């Protein structure tokens, strides 16, 4: 009732008017607010359009570098020595993984992997990183890839990637020559930055670490390409907008010949040593093998620390390239070079003989410097001295030349210096001098030491490559070719052949000196009492060479007088501890009348050079000439066939 009266009193018109005015005020407010909203949107969409468009694009567009394909490496006949093969790897982006430990454990379980990959992965993760994703394991089998693909949705942030990986089909055969590639580490980055070439490696994961792979890195690597891609908020590539292809690296052809390298390895089986086979005419290395070697492929994949420790601690030092880093006393293989010094300086002449009583005496020194044959070689001239490897002749020569002259001359023959071969792993070995001895041993030079140096002993060490290079100077009558692995580079179809690396020739008064020395070296092979004769009986070609036998220092120190370290010949006591046996060395070339190949051999702890190194040279030369003949025959056959085809074509055309 109250309500009814109340209603009766109500002024409906006033209420309607009040409401309408309030509603209009609201409408006005709404309109104002909408205008403010619109103004703000105008500010964003029209005034700020450029800025926001840029920001939107930088959100979605990323430029990704594309790695170039690394150039391949071939031998001189086009046999592939380093290739790129597709491998599948599991890669992880840790930022996208929720529980990393759990994910890793489950991955190991799923793929039947070794637990050690986890610790390897965590080390990788802690290192300075260049890519968001980190390889977890390489070289998945197809079965593993399939298994992972099936469970991929359980592994966010983990993916299978296919990429090209370096592979060396000959495993350990060329490791010391070609080297290998490995993951780019901090030092590599610093080096690249110093060269201003780091930008070329934006997408590259590996770099040449050793050998040719390292030396010719800039040739092999190429230039990266770029792809402009659209990515979503999680960084996944949605599509490619633009693609600039990478420029692949150039292919490299080496002077080495797989067949010759193989025979070299075969000859060193079970021994420590090195063989260098050189093309006499230009210094190209047909073979350079150091035994023991190791599989280069394990470094590409990332060697485990246990495997690496095993290599490091192996007493046979497989990591050392004995051909360029092994330091061996040259022993009697130095005699031809000493002979050249004697002739050039007029200390000896071509025909004068000296009497060898089996020893050489220094005036005022009581001790006698003995020939290896204690009763002597009688009357000995230069050729004979080389043929029978007479010590007395060279004691006299060395004594008369003096250490200073020996040092200077041998330096010009390339001893005591790196040969400049196109790999970085090279040792200059040691060419002793007065100054060196004073500086390093703080002792004056003794004349007795000069005599030892004259037969390639005392402090003098050489690398097999130095020995081959110096020998080739004799063979080419004074031309000085630097040893060289690179034969040609190929950029697409364009082959560029490498010119020989040649230094100014050795200045020798009379070229006849060379022929006399070469005659002496040939006699060492051809004459019945030549030190290498036994190894070359019935050889179908004319070979020349010089043997050497160096006692290892430890034995010399333990048992022998230092001046008696050289024993050239074959009386090797078999009961001597293996490591204390003599090193066998050999230098040689063939054919003697028109030298094609020059070689140097050093084999550790096997005994005398005549019995142990010369036969190795024989088998290599036999193989080489035989093989050369078959290659030539094959080429002839091909040529004939081509001519025949041409003739047929021509006759077809005529018809």
């Amino acid at each position, binding site marked *: 009732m109250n309500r009814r009266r109340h209603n009766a009193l109500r002024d409906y018109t006033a209420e309607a008017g*009040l409401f309408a005015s309030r509603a209009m005020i609201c409408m006005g407010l709404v309109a104002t607010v909408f205008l403010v909203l619109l103004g703000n949107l105008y500010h964003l969409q029209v005034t700020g359009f450029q800025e926001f468009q840029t*920001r939107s694009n930088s959100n*979605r567009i990323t430029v990704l570098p594309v790695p170039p394909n690394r150039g391949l490496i071939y031998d001189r006949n086009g046999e592939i020595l380093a290739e790129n093969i597709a491998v599948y790897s599991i890669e992880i982006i840790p930022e996208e993984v929720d529980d990393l430990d759990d994910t890793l454990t489950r991955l190991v379980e799923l793929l039947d992997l070794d637990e050690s990959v986890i610790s390897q992965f965590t080390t990788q993760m802690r290192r300075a990183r260049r890519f968001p994703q980190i390889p977890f394991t390489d070289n998945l089998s197809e079965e593993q890839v399939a298994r992972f693909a099936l469970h991929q949705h359980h592994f966010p942030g983990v993916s299978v990637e296919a990429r090209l990986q370096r592979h060396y089909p000959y495993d350990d055969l060329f490791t010391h020559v070609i080297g290998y590639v490995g993951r780019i580490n901090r030092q590599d980055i610093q080096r690249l930055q110093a060269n201003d070439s780091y930008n070329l490696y934006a997408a590259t994961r590996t770099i040449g670490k050793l050998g040719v792979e390292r030396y010719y890195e800039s040739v092999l690597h190429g230039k990266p390409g770029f792809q402009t891609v659209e990515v979503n908020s999680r960084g996944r590539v949605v599509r490619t907008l633009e693609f600039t292809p990478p420029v692949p690296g150039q292919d490299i052809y080496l002077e080495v010949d797989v067949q010759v390298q193989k025979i070299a390895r075969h000859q060193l089986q079970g021994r420590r040593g090195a063989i260098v086979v050189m093309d006499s005419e230009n210094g190209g290395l047909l073979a350079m093998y150091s035994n023991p070697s190791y599989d280069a492929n394990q470094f590409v994949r990332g060697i485990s620390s246990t495997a690496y420790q095993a290599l490091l601690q192996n007493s046979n030092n497989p990591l050392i390239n004995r051909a360029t880093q092994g330091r061996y006393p040259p022993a009697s293989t130095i005699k031809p070079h000493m002979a050249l010094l004697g002739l050039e300086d007029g200390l000896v002449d071509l025909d004068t003989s000296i009497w060898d009583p089996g020893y050489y005496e220094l005036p005022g020194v009581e001790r006698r410097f003995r020939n290896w044959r204690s009763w002597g070689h009688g009357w000995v001239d230069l050729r004979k001295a080389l043929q029978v490897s007479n010590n007395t002749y060279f004691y006299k020569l060395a004594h008369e030349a003096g250490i200073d002259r020996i040092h200077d001359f041998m330096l010009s023959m390339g001893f005591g210096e790196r040969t400049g071969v196109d790999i970085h792993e090279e040792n200059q070995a040691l060419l002793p001098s007065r100054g060196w001895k004073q500086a390093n041993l703080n002792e004056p030079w003794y004349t007795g030491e000069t005599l030892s140096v004259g037969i390639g002993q005392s402090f003098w060490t050489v690398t097999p490559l130095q020995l081959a290079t110096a020998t080739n100077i004799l063979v080419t009558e004074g031309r000085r070719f630097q040893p060289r692995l690179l034969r040609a580079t190929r950029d697409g179809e364009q082959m560029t052949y490498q010119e020989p690396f040649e230094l100014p020739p050795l200045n020798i008064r009379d070229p006849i000196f060379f022929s006399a020395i070469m005659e002496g070296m040939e006699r060492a092979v051809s004459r019945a009492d030549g030190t290498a004769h036994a190894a070359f009986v019935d050889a179908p070609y004319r070979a020349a060479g010089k043997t050497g036998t160096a006692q290892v220092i430890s034995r010399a120190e333990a048992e022998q007088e230092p001046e008696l370290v050289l024993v050239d010949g074959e009386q090797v006591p078999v009961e001597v501890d293996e490591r204390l046996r003599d090193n066998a060395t050999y230098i040689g070339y063939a054919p003697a009348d028109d030298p094609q190949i020059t070689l140097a051999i050093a084999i550790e702890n096997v005994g005398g050079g005549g019995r142990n190194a010369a036969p190795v040279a024989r088998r290599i030369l036999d193989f080489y000439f035989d093989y050369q003949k078959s290659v030539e025959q094959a080429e002839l056959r091909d040529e004939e066939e081509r001519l025949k085809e041409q003739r047929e074509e021509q006759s077809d055309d005529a018809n």
Partner: protein
Amino acid sequence: MMQTSQERGSLTLFYRFHIDLPLFLALACLSVISLAVIYSAGGQDIALVQRQSVRIGIAFTVLIVLAQISPLTYKRLAIPMFVVGVALLLAVLFFGVVGKGAQRWLDIGITRIQPSEIMKIATPMMLAWYCSQQQLPVRWTQAFGGLLLIAVPTLLIAKQPDLGTALLVFSSGVFVLFLAGMSWRLISAALVALAAFLPVAWFFLMHNYQRQRVLTFLHPESDPLGSGYHIIQSKIAIGSGGFEGKGWLQGTQSQLEFLPERHTDFIFSVFSEEFGLMGVCVLLILYGFIVYRGLAIAIRAQQVFSKLLAGSITLTVFIYALVNIGMVSGLLPVVGVPLPLISYGGTSMVTIMAGFGILMAIATHRRLVLRD
């Protein structure tokens, strides 16, 4: 009131079914836009569009059904609904189901209900009834009583915590008071009180994440990868849309998932990116038209209760749009309020459509009211 007699004639058929055609068409337009944008924002997932279609269907059914009921019935239901609503809110407080970090749902065996949604309708109804009891304008004492009535559901919802809904419930009540002629002096006093209350809310009532949202709102670029990320990406989406937009399904910010909550709270950014300022204008005109139409209905309504309720319902929809658009374009802090009738999701859409159903009932039951 603003229509010609010819227009009204053509609308007669719809009026018989208690449908206000212009409003209905505007709502239908928004629904079509909603489906198109959800298709784009959801990564062309047709299942998403199908689910939303079903919800729209349900929402329109609710609208049509509620439009058939006389406003007098709503007036009678005002008190019971409010009481039940508050009771349910209390029940949520004690027995509610926790979801998404907040206690909003009540499990009633068959389904879960969200009592705060009921309060979006029940509060303005209650206030409208309360204010219509006496001659307008509302007096001081009455206004205080009204504010108390508003405070009860608002605080209960804010406690859940659901700041967005609390804000909507609060404003729906305050609009009734304003439309009922609350004096300007009181309004000024209330604003001052609110200003004084803000620091209290900041230090004592707000949760950490809510404070974070406000801080982020003030300096979004200070934390570009954290909570500021959403707003930055949203502004980039809107801004990069430019005048013409990138085209439907062509918005990179949304298609490449740089935008968060693409088909729900940030759907306006998707729309702006793909349709540009032109599309935004169309959308704002639609909303503006709906507000205009709703207020026109309110002015034409003959009962005070109907006027107040219609006005409040209309203005609350406006608040929805304002808060959402203001949020995604960086004018307001991030508050979880969907874009009305566009955002994916059923609950708030049904509530809004229910409101429009009541609005249409008010618009079309006039003769009955006259006879009463």
